C-alpha cells in the first residue's frame, strides 16, 4: 500500500478531513519552526547546565546529594504515558467522529501531565527544604532554570489543553480547533523529547558520575 503523503510533522489528517489537511500545512509548519527555536532555547540551557553542574558547585550540594532518582523515574513514566495518551487523542481526532473519545483521551493526558507537574513541584520543595535552593550555587541556579523551564512549558501546555477543551465545547470541532489540537500535540511530544534529555543528562548523568 502506498503511503499517504505527509504534509507536516505530527499525525496528518489525510483523507479523513481533506480540507483541514491542506489548511494544516503552512500553519503546522510555522509552529514546527517555532518549536525549533524553542529547542535552541533548551539547548542553551543544557549547555549552561553542562558547564555549571561541574564548575559551579561552589562547595555546595552536588547532583548526587540532591537528585531523587525514583521520583524522576515516576515523573518520566507519567510524561511518557501522557505522550501515548495524547497519541490516542490525536487518533480520536482523526478517526472518531464522536467527541467523547477525544475528550476522554485529552482528559487522561491532562491528568498525567498535572501529575508530572505536581511531582516536580514536590521534588523542588524537598530540595528547597534541604537547602538546595537556586541561590546556593551556580549549579543549582542552572538546574532550577533548566528543569523549571521545562515544567513551565508543561504547565503552559496544560492551560492550553483547558482552553482547547473549552473550545471543543463552545466552538465544536472546527478546522481551527483541530489545527490547534494538532499543534498542541507537537508541543507535547516535543516536551517529551526535552524531558528525555533532562532525565538522561541531568538526573542519570548527575547520579552516575
Amino acid at each position, binding site marked *: 500500500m502506498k503511503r499517504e503523503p505527509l504534509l507536516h*510533522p505530527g499525525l496528518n489528517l489525510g483523507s479523513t478531513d481533506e480540507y483541514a489537511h491542506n489548511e494544516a500545512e503552512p500553519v503546522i509548519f510555522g509552529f514546527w519552526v517555532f518549536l525549533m527555536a524553542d529547542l535552541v532555547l533548551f539547548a542553551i540551557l543544557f549547555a549552561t547546565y553542562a*558547564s555549571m553542574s561541574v564548575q559551579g558547585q561552589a562547595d555546595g550540594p552536588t547532583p548526587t546529594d540532591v537528585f531523587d532518582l*525514583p521520583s524522576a523515574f515516576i515523573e518520566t513514566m507519567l510524561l*511518557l504515558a501522557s505522550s501515548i495518551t495524547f497519541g490516542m487523542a490525536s487518533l480520536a481526532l482523526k*478517526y472518531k467522529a464522536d467527541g467523547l473519545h477525544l475528550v476522554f483521551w485529552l482528559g487522561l493526558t491532562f491528568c498525567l501531565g498535572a501529575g508530572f507537574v505536581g511531582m516536580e513541584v514536590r521534588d523542588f520543595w524537598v530540595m528547597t527544604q534541604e537547602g538546595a535552593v537556586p541561590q546556593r550555587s551556580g549549579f543549582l541556579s542552572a538546574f532550577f532554570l533548566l528543569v523549571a523551564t521545562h515544567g513551565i512549558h508543561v504547565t503552559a501546555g496544560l492551560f492550553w489543553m483547558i482552553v482547547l477543551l473549552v473550545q471543543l465545547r463552545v466552538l465544536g470541532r472546527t478546522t481551527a480547533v483541530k489545527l490547534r489540537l494538532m499543534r498542541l500535540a507537537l508541543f507535547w511530544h516535543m516536551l*517529551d523529547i526535552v524531558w*528525555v534529555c533532562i532525565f*538522561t*543528562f541531568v538526573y542519570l548523568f548527575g547520579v552516575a*558520575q
Partner: protein
Amino acid sequence: MTHKHVETYARDFRSYCIGGVLALALTALAFWLVMFEILPDFERLIAISILAVAQIIVHFRFFLHISWYSHRDDLQLVLFTSLILFLMVGGTIWILFNLHERMM
C-alpha cells in the same frame, strides 16, 4: 470509518503503540543501568547517552511522524536544527571547559 480508513487507522495506531513500548523500554533500561550500577562508570555514561539518542529518534519517528518520507522542508529543518544545536552546545561546552582549564 470506510475500509481505507480502517487500514490507515491500524497503521497510525500501531505507530503510537510501537513508539510507546520502545520509549518505555529504553527509559527503563537507562534507569536500570544507573540505579543498579550496571557497567563501569564511563561505559555507563556512554550507554545511557546512546539510549537517550535512540529514544529521541523513536519519539521523532513514532510520535512526531518525522521520517525519510516526510515533507522535504520538515526533514531539512530537523537536520538543520540538529546542526545548529550541535554547534551551539558543542561549542559552548568546548569553550567553557577550555577556559576553566586555563584559569585554575
